């Protein structure tokens, strides 16, 4: 369990992380998404107590990580940048880390086997490929069998087989009750691995929700209606919580109604319909939409109460969508 409360980090003039609050529960894989420079790595470094927050605090398993008696049993982290002395062998790197917390030597060997570095464990890390470095980083994160596992871009540089392995590993860790917090810029990867999402942009919280909810909230479902009677169709469908926008002269995008409801209404009103298509936004589209700088509501809805609708949000979102279209 990770609890982030009102966390900010300022570097000179730049506010890299801006009053972030979210929590990462145990037993699930939580994805951490945001465009480059959104503050993901800075946030992760603050969780691991490598960087001191400008404001706010972080609790790892309910405690201040710096005060942990066995830090490696509480939290293991793979940082995006390599964090290994290039002149040391993989085995000695892991051994040195293991010794600080009293992790037994056989655990080092187990992990070397597990991440598939047995053949190169005696070689100096300086010669490792990006993928091998990632495997070593994952091994060091898991040394103390920590309750919280944080991985910054773990699939970076991995071959497809490695990607699959990481995916299964994360799921297995979560199923075993660990807290798994993983950042990625690969939306498709997140869709396959994560069940929860924390999304940030420009250091601010955009969403703290489930993957499903995120997709339906952001892109939601919309229905494309092609009809020659655009004006009549629009007035027929409009109602509370229903938005209708137009991309082309004979096409309407309808939100808040299902294709069935629209088809039935059109049939009853004797309006011709040439096309009726349900559009489901992908995680990727949802992400692009929500992190797009032109989207205004993000700054208002930073507190993440996605259940509550209000006019400002919908209005701003529709405006953005019309602009995109």
């Amino acid at each position, binding site marked *: 369990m990770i609890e982030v409360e009102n966390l900010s980090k300022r570097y000179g003039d730049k506010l890299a992380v801006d009053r972030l609050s979210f929590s990462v529960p145990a037993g699930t894989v939580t994805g951490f998404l945001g465009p480059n420079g959104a503050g993901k790595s800075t946030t992760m470094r603050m969780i691991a107590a490598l960087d001191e927050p400008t404001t706010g605090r972080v609790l790892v398993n309910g405690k201040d990580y710096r005060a942990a008696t066995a830090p490696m049993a509480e939290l293991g982290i793979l940082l995006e940048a390599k964090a290994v002395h290039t002149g040391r062998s993989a085995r000695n790197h892991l051994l040195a880390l293991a010794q600080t917390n009293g992790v037994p030597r056989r655990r080092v060997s187990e992990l070397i086997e597990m991440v598939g570095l047995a053949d190169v464990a005696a070689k100096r890390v300086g010669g490792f490929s990006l993928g091998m470095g990632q495997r070593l980083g994952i091994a060091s994160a898991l040394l103390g069998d920590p309750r919280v596992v944080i991985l910054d871009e773990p699939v970076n540089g991995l071959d497809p087989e490695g990607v699959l392995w990481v995916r*299964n590993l994360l799921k297995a860790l979560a199923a075993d009750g660990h807290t798994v917090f993983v950042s990625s810029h690969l939306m498709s990867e997140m869709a396959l691995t994560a069940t929860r999402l924390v999304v940030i942009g420009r250091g601010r919280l955009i969403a703290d929700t489930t993957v499903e909810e995120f997709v339906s909230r952001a892109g939601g479902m919309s229905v494309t209606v092609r009809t020659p009677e655009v004006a009549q169709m629009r007035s027929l469908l409009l109602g509370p919580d229903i938005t209708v926008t137009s991309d082309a002269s004979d096409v309407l995008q309808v939100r808040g109604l299902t294709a069935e409801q629209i088809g039935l209404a059109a049939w009853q009103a004797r309006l011709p319909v040439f096309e009726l298509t349900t559009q489901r936004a992908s995680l990727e589209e949802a992400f692009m939409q929500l992190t797009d700088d032109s989207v205004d509501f993000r700054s208002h809805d930073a507190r993440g109460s996605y259940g509550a609708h209000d006019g400002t949000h919908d209005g701003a979102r529709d405006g953005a969508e019309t602009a995109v279209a």
Partner: protein
Amino acid sequence: MSAVLTSEPASARPARPAGPVLKVTQARVLVSEFTKFRTVRSTVWTLLVAVVLMIGISALFSAVTASQYHTFDAADRATFNPVSISLSGMMFAVVAFGVLGVLMISGEYSTGMIRSSLTAVPRRLPVLWGKLAVFAGVIFSISLVASVICFFLGQALLNSHHLGVSVTAPGALRSIIGAALYGTVSGMIGVALGALFRNTAAGIATFAGVFFVIPPLTGLLPASISDHLSQYLPSYAGDAVWGGARSVTDALSPWTGFAVLCGYAVVLIAAAAVRLRRVDA
């Protein structure tokens, strides 16, 4: 990479290690730091260079002094100290110790290793204490052995011209141990500089500046100033404990000089500790 990876979660996660209770202790961090120290190839090479410099240059100075003694004037003969001549290689070995000290920390910053180290030990300071203890232990042991070899080798060479003294001569034992202490504490200043600058080049340049560039420069100052200043420089103060072959007016007494050197080390280490604790890794 040829290793075959399995995709089954079962094999992807070995069982939680049964038995040992994980906990960070200063002793464990020290063991870890010793592992780090001995598993980087450059450490071994730098130490080897230090020992070769120390023994080789000491022997060279002893041999040259022995063969040239007959050309010395009365003043040179009056200040002739067979003990410090036989240990003079320490003046140069200290470069290697300083570099090694700086690298011990700056190497972690340049490679990013420091982030792994501090995540494993988020209290941070045990890492610095561990590094200093390992460094001091290893450097003192090695330089003491080298110092003893230098002494006996040097006296043997000087004895070819009947200039050598025995280990029981006044100040001989103190100088042998003192040379090792000087090398150790100077190197610890290097460790502190590495932690302060977090950068190899800056750390080594500062160390070299303080130990090798500034001392001769004080000779350019008017004697009225330099005579009250130069004996307090880290290198000259430290030289006092082993009779380092440098002429300083009003040199400090051996242990006062060593205490001054230790004072510099303590201040720099304290600053390094504050910086390590307070500043983002």
